[in-house]
């Protein structure tokens, strides 16, 4: 692949995630998954591994697979271990000449399957150093089971297990910073990205992750129109707001070196990101201004730390 990104050339490649899958209309995950897989070189094959998730039930509902590559799903909490197993088999079979060509191993799991129930399996696989990419498509709640909170759900977000009531004000805790936890695994490549603009960021990070030897981790923001409660046509705008408010900063850590991928020309206030989403609606009620203030100060704090890390 030429190192210069060219959207026209990339979209000319046959898609590796076909239509006919059953993800919701407007689902961010379809965009994320096809975007990551697009980074594969044409001649290379992949084995896609998937945790139980919206993605899984939608993209391989018997007898319909939406993948052009081999695919395996076995359970919710074990996608990283599953990917380890495929990679181990590849090494073994390659050694005895039973497999030809380059095969890449890419895991997709949601935030529940990554931040929570799949965390042990992920940590184990990263520590063991398998040559694989683990992609978390982060939609900030358990969407497959009907929008329950995960440790990725941001503070104040309304979910079905953190409802807003006379006492409850949505989720009480801040979002776990999984990307940083993965950085602490000292793996070759960790990046946070999202489908924005012409996809240069998502594409180049996916390419790096796929073609860097060893375990690599991508955390990709993947809005869920149903769970976040915004008009589905707004996907690109919502993502752009997440990035421009620094709620979801784009950065990468390559061999321990932090690099900020994007600094907004004008850092927008967090409320611009929160306002279009029904899950944050209660934050805009009279008397709840403190919530927005706290959300802002949390984002500012995290952003400052990231600027320090990256020396930006």
């Amino acid at each position: 692949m030429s190192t210069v990104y060219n959207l026209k050339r990339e979209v000319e490649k046959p898609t590796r995630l076909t239509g006919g899958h059953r993800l919701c209309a407007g689902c961010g995950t379809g965009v994320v998954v096809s975007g990551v897989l697009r980074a594969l070189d044409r001649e290379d094959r992949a084995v896609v591994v998937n945790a139980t998730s919206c993605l899984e039930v939608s993209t391989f509902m018997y007898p319909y697979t939406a993948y052009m590559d081999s695919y395996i799903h076995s359970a919710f909490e074990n996608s990283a271990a599953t990917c380890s197993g495929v990679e181990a088999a590849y090494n073994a079979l390659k050694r005895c000449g039973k497999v030809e060509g380059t095969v890449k191993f890419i895991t997709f799991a949601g935030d529940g399957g990554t931040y929570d129930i799949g965390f042990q399996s992920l940590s184990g696989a990263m520590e063991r150093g398998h040559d694989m990419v683990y992609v978390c498509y982060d939609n900030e709640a358990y969407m497959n089971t009907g929008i329950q909170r995960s440790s990725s759900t941001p503070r104040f977000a309304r979910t079905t297990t953190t409802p807003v009531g006379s006492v409850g004000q949505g989720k009480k805790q801040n979002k776990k910073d999984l990307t940083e936890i993965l950085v602490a695994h000292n793996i070759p490549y960790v990046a946070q990205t999202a489908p924005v603009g012409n996809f240069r960021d998502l594409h180049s990070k996916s390419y790096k992750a796929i073609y860097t030897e060893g375990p690599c981790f991508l955390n990709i923001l993947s809005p869920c129109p149903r769970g976040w409660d915004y008009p589905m046509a707004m996907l690109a705008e919502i993502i752009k707001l997440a990035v421009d408010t620094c709620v979801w900063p784009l950065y990468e850590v390559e061999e321990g070196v932090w690099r900020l991928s994007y600094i907004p020309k004008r850092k927008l206030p967090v409320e611009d990101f929160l306002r279009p989403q029904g899950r944050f609606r209660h934050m805009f009620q009279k008397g709840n201004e403190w919530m927005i203030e706290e959300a802002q100060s949390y984002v500012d704090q995290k952003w400052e730390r990231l600027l320090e890390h990256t020396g930006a």
Partner: protein
Amino acid sequence: MSSRLSGNEAVAYAMKQINPDVMGAFPITPSTEIPEYFAAYVANGEVNTEYVAVESEHSSMSVCIAAQAAGARAVSATSSCGLALMYELLYVAASCRLPITLACVNRALSGPININHDYSDSMGARDSGWIQIYAENNQEAYDNIIMAMPIGETPNIRLPVMSCMDGFITSHAVENIELLETDVVRKFIGEYNPEHYLLKKENPLAVGPYDVSAYYMEHKVQEAEAMKAAKSRILEVAAEFEKISGRRYGLFEEYRMEDAQLALVLIGSTAGTAKAAINKLRENGIKAGLVKIRVFRPFPGEELARALAGTRAVAVMDKSEGFSANGGPLFAETRSALYDLKERPYMINIVYGLGGRDVKTEDIEKVFGRLADIARTGETHPVYTHMGQRSREEETA
């Protein structure tokens, strides 16, 4: 080739001879030694296996599932809580029709935590779709591992095989053993060439669908039919194995059953102790016999009914509690298997040996004593009892 090995070393040695493509393993007593021995083979370059030392048994079974789906031969070993942690994946392995080989070194399940032998681990997994084969001693543990792949990998079977042996009693006891030559083992198990696998170049493979109601039942029927077909395949493989080893195996072993009036049905190492007790009783003219279940899944119901048809009284001895309040799992299966006999023997259930409670020949003799009473009086009450526990009351068995 004569040697002396513990059950664990025998199983590890069999795995070395098999030279699987992938091993996923996590330590747990008493199966830990198997991946330890195997790691040494890896370290010494004696196998080509990709050895994945995972962070949990859940992941070791996940690795095996993925590796087997990818076209590799995958093996693992575990015990007790480790098997319990794999539980979900046991079903996945079987339903994805992946012939993984798992050495299960049977140990009691928590709680309270206990590291010694009983079958509560694998009995809990009896409905997961795995073929289950149990060993009486190290020799059988070794032989069963070698037979696992030719059984499981058969195209119309494609089921994972759990090869079980008794924790510590078998796994840690050094006994005599006859080993096969490695080239004989390799030839016996052959190459693994599945029709479809993830890494196949010619066409992709998708594994593990979301199966809606319109298909799920059909897939379960396929699995059930495969388990039915496994019975004859197990016997075929046993016959082939006899040719290379001289050792004969069936679905179960009948010991002095030709004219037995009183019989035991049980699993594993207790069979050896029972054989010694039976020999002694036979010297005293008591027509005692034993059926040692080797294959529990598929359950040899019809065959077992035939074997027990001529007896007067049978004690089914379960080394695991089922908490059904109606007897252990082996009892439920055995009693059900005999339902269609025109004349059924009296039958009782004794749950024994839990958490490593030792079983002596004297204990077995006592059971036969009770069977003799039952045969004489016809009085089986209470049908379901425990043996070997301290009690304020006298034991019934």
